[in-house]
């Protein structure tokens, strides 16, 4: 039922989406940056980093889960499903239809996957955006899952890792989507209160209301090389159709140069960097691994069942 493309202790192993047919290794893929044709297997082995131009291709959440220790991930809040609070309809499509079609196509409810896992045995909470789900846009479910991830991390006194690739707020949920910026920030105050870090990974693309809220005030901000990151242009980028592309200056490297990102870390080094950070944050406050509160394990089982 589960397949692992690769197991590399030093970096990480993308995990295949369940039910997805495995792509044969002898297929070719084209790098979206340099247009080079690459063997699928070679691309997989390099964690979807182009061997020719080092372009970091986008990962979907189940691929990001390969950052964690094998078998350590437990998903939470998978039972949250988007509503259509405004009854939003445009000539292009009704929001309710768009949701249904995207859910059926991707086999998931909305744009965030969250849960608990370990890296080198150290537990953490994590939440991962899925850009393939309506541009990773931030609606009520996104906000609620991020909020619960932060609250869970606070309650369990665990670090929180967020992986942020999003076009910004989800306009079909109107001002409710905007308010998710404040809601998630609220929850992060609880994490701060228990002196646990929020580590934000900015991946391609990260824009608008997402960048302008919780990831930009993380304790540690890591960006992937070449990722498009910026404030403006988000609303356009967040939609798959039309619209201008991000400006040239809206990159991870530009953000780093201007002091807004702690480090730009190649994907191959990411797991090692996170592991070291978890060691540093865990050295004083946690002697060994934090243990789960029994009551919470029960809740997790219920929520997960």
């Amino acid at each position, binding site marked *: 039922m589960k397949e692992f493309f690769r197991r590399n202790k030093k970096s990480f192993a993308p995990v295949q989406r369940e039910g997805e047919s495995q792509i044969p290794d002898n297929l070719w893929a084209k790098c979206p940056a340099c247009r080079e044709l690459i063997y699928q297997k070679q691309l997989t082995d390099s964690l979807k980093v182009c061997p020719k131009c080092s372009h970091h291709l986008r990962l979907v959440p189940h691929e990001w889960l390969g950052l964690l220790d094998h078998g350590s991930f437990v998903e939470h809040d998978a039972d949250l499903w988007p509503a259509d609070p405004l009854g939003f309809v445009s000539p292009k499509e009704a929001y309710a239809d768009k949701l249904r079609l995207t859910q059926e196509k991707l086999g998931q409810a909305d744009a965030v996957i969250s849960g608990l896992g370990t890296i080198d045995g150290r537990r953490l909470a994590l939440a991962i955006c899925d850009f393939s789900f309506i541009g990773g846009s931030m609606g009520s479910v996104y906000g609620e899952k991020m909020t619960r991830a932060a609250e869970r991390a606070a309650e369990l006194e665990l670090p929180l890792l967020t992986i942020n690739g999003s076009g910004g707020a989800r306009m079909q949920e109107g001002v409710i989507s905007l308010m998710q910026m404040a809601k998630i920030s*609220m929850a992060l105050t609880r994490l701060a209160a228990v002196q646990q870090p929020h580590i934000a990974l900015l991946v391609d693309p990260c824009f608008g209301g997402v960048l302008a809220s919780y990831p930009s005030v993380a304790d540690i901000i890591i960006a992937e090389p070449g990722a498009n990151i910026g404030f403006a242009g988000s609303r356009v980028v967040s939609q798959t159709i039309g619209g201008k592309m991000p400006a040239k200056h809206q990159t991870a490297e530009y953000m780093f140069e201007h002091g*807004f990102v702690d480090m730009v870390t190649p994907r191959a080094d990411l797991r090692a960097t996170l592991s070291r950070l978890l060691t540093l944050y865990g050295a004083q406050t946690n002697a060994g691994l934090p243990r789960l509160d029994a009551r919470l394990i029960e809740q997790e089982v219920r929520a997960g069942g």
Partner: protein
Amino acid sequence: MTTSDTSTETLTAWDRVQLARNVQRPHTLDMVRGLCEHFVELHGDRRFGDDAAIVGGMATLQGRTVMIVGHQKGRNARENVQRHFGMPRPEGYRKALRLFRHAEKFGFPLLCFIDTPGADPERESEERGQANAIAECIMAMTNLRVPIIATVIGEGGSGGALAIGVADRMLMMENAIYSVISPEGCASILWRDAAKAPDAARAMRITAADVHELGIADAVIAEPAGGAHTDIAAAVESAALVIREHLEQLTGDEIATTLACRYQKYRAIGRFHERQQALLGVQAGEPLPFVV
């Protein structure tokens, strides 16, 4: 809540957008003049500059010192160039942040006035960290240890509005709007035609009445018939009555209570379903898709 029952009730969302953007509406400094005494404007972010698109300072209100922070638009072309049309740059938000902390240090309740098309999107603002500046303001407001009342007096434009809008009470003038994206922006994407902005304005539910009905605005402040710009003094007085009332409520509470309520207020925003796995044919008890 003060709800108006003037003739403006029949206005469309797009009509409200026009009213919200009317340059003759009361702006932040008009509100301050009508509401407070002893205003002393404070300037600068102590980092880079002083942004005229955000004004702030201390004043007294019913004998109590309050901190004011608001977007400031102009009334004519010259003023609007100076005020950058009420679109703050990062230094504007960092000035706001400084004043938030100042208010907290001295225990001054914070009154914010929202009136912006949005944060400045130009390259220079990106370069100096527009996203960071907004994020820090939002983060600071989540647990600022003084009562906060935010009033949308005109345009509530996206993150640029929310940056000074996380509050214990969120009030909206009757013809104010609050939107995640401008109607024109939304229309150009989802209608493929910016001219369909009136349709987008309706679909996004951006009017004060809509935002109140969605549970996000706590109260709607009645405006004079014809809109706030027809009688600024009356509009300001109408707002002042509501603001004073909420301020009195809030200052009666312990700050711990206020903070707990603020948390719950925002914690509760969002509409979603739970436990509907059946939607995709997954039955309860089945392994979850991404447990590895």
